[in-house]
């Protein structure tokens, strides 16, 4: 009621005021996100190298045909998939353990909660360079620790070898992003009603039974959201790979490949086709996840 009266003083209807308030934000989103996206698809249909702009020509789906036959693209796709599956799984298991740990009060909890946030607070590029130094083959502290523990016989070039480079990247990423996973799961834990646990205890349920039959089922929506967020994020991994290996040693992911094609080779036509492919894969992913999530909520 009051809103209507108030707006009348401005001489605007509620609908008009909404337009006035929304236009600046929506225009920015349309102009700098949606319009460029359509341009990406348009560019992807052309043979267009920035260095030879005059030779630009329309090639239809030619770039996409090339894409399917490109072994670099196929390799990048499988590296990305491997990275995503392994890192998100590890983050989920460790993140759940962390969330369960800081959910209940114990001596020193404040300190632990603060420490958990430290990796999250450090920019990815910086944390990657800190780890690059620790992974260093000649002076790195990781070689030092593993040698002292007699887990390796001599120093290893972790980032220089195809077998270990991807694992080094995954460990660096897990260190950095587990806090985010833990926070999302913690928020889910906090909305589970306490009396459920109390009545289960009265009925004689043990700790494992309470976890299995109360925590896990009720945490399901939070688990799904956390895994969706992290999967979408992991699939477009760039910073950590760019810094640690630059894509060498069998670690090139899709976005790293895309960056190379666009800004090293200046192939804006073919590069845009890779961008469009990445967008479509993520779009399909999120669509599937939304469905799963929607069904979950309906069942509840």
């Amino acid at each position, binding site marked *: *009621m*009051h*809103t209507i*009266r*108030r707006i009348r003083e401005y001489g605007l209807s509620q609908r008009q*005021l*909404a*337009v006035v*308030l*929304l236009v*600046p*934000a*929506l225009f920015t*989103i349309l102009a*700098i*996100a*949606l319009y*460029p*996206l359509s*341009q*990406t698809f*348009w560019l992807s249909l052309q043979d267009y190298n920035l260095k030879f702009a005059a030779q630009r020509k329309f090639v239809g789906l030619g770039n996409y045909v090339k894409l399917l036959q490109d072994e670099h693209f196929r390799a990048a796709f499988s590296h990305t998939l491997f990275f995503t599956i392994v890192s998100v799984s590890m983050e989920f298991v460790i993140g759940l353990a962390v969330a369960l*740990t800081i959910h209940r009060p114990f001596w020193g909890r404040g300190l*632990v909660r603060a*420490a*958990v*946030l*430290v*990796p999250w*607070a*450090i920019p*990815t*590029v*910086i*944390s990657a*360079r*800190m*780890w690059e*130094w620790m992974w260093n083959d*000649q*002076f790195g*502290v990781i070689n030092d620790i593993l040698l002292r523990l007699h887990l390796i016989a001599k120093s290893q070039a972790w980032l220089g070898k195809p077998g270990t480079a991807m694992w080094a990247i995954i460990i660096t990423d897990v*260190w950095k992003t587990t*806090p985010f996973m833990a*926070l999302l799961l*913690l*928020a*889910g834990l906090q*909305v589970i009603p306490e009396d459920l646990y109390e009545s289960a205890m009265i009925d004689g349920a043990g700790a494992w039974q309470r976890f299995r039959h109360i925590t896990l089922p009720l945490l399901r929506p939070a688990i799904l959201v*956390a895994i969706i967020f992290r999967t979408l994020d992991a699939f*477009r991994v760039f*910073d950590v790979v*760019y*810094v640690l290996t630059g894509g060498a040693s069998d670690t090139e992911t899709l976005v790293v490949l895309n*960056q190379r094609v666009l800004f090293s080779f200046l192939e*804006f036509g073919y*590069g845009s086709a890779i*961008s*469009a492919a990445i967008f479509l894969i*993520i779009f399909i992913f999120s669509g599937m996840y939304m469905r799963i999530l929607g069904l979950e909520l309906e069942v509840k």
Partner: protein
Amino acid sequence: MRAHRRLRATTVLFYVWVVVYVVVSIFPLYWAINTSLKTHNEIIAWPPTWFPHDLTLANYYATFTEHEFGRNILNSLIVAGGTTFLALLLGSLAAYALARLRFPGKLAVMGLILMTSMFPSIAIVSPLFILLRKLHWLNTFQGLIVPYTSFALPLTIWILTSFFHEIPYELEEAALVDGATPFQALRLVILPLAAPGLVTAGLLVFIAAWNEFLFALNFTLDNTTRTVPVAIALFSRQFEVPWGELNAASVVVTLPLVLLVLIFQRRIITGLTAGAIKG
């Protein structure tokens, strides 16, 4: 007696896990601080020393003189600050409309905003580069601030809408009944009550802009606009990485961030999780 012993064993195990996790979380930062305070000779000694033997601030000095790292910090402050200001300004207007006004197509607008929040930035980097080149916006601050704002708006609008929802209508109404003009009601009632939401959204936007790398790497050309992540990623001297100076630079920008996050930890946790769980 046996139950007691088992309880003690699980307590010990619990604390072992907690200590290991805390140490692993903090160690890389400790190691960067340790390295940054060493001399060049100590940095390349084997085995590495776990404490600096000859404490020196030479790396910090070189970071700001030889590498002009102060310029990068200033650039990042301008870009992240500008983005935060723009995103909060445009975002709070839009959020007010979404939270308080009734108009057709509201669901479509919210769907559109939610959809763009899933955009990978790589998907638009090529046309954006061409656009910025056409506008002569490459290697400028606005060339980063405007794209960052566009990417920050969905989260900003999402958080602010939920905060505006929680401010009761009656307060605003009471102010109007008491003779306040609509502008006074907004300034004296709504904005103070929405302040926690503005701080939360502002912090998250600032951190995201401060950390962004892909656009910053491609849309800046030299040190006049290069932000901190780009400078850190490209940090080098001919033929070798100056590890001492690199770690000094990393520590300089990381410590304030870590402090900021620790001070605002409660607010950040609610802000991060509000969008995901409540929404």
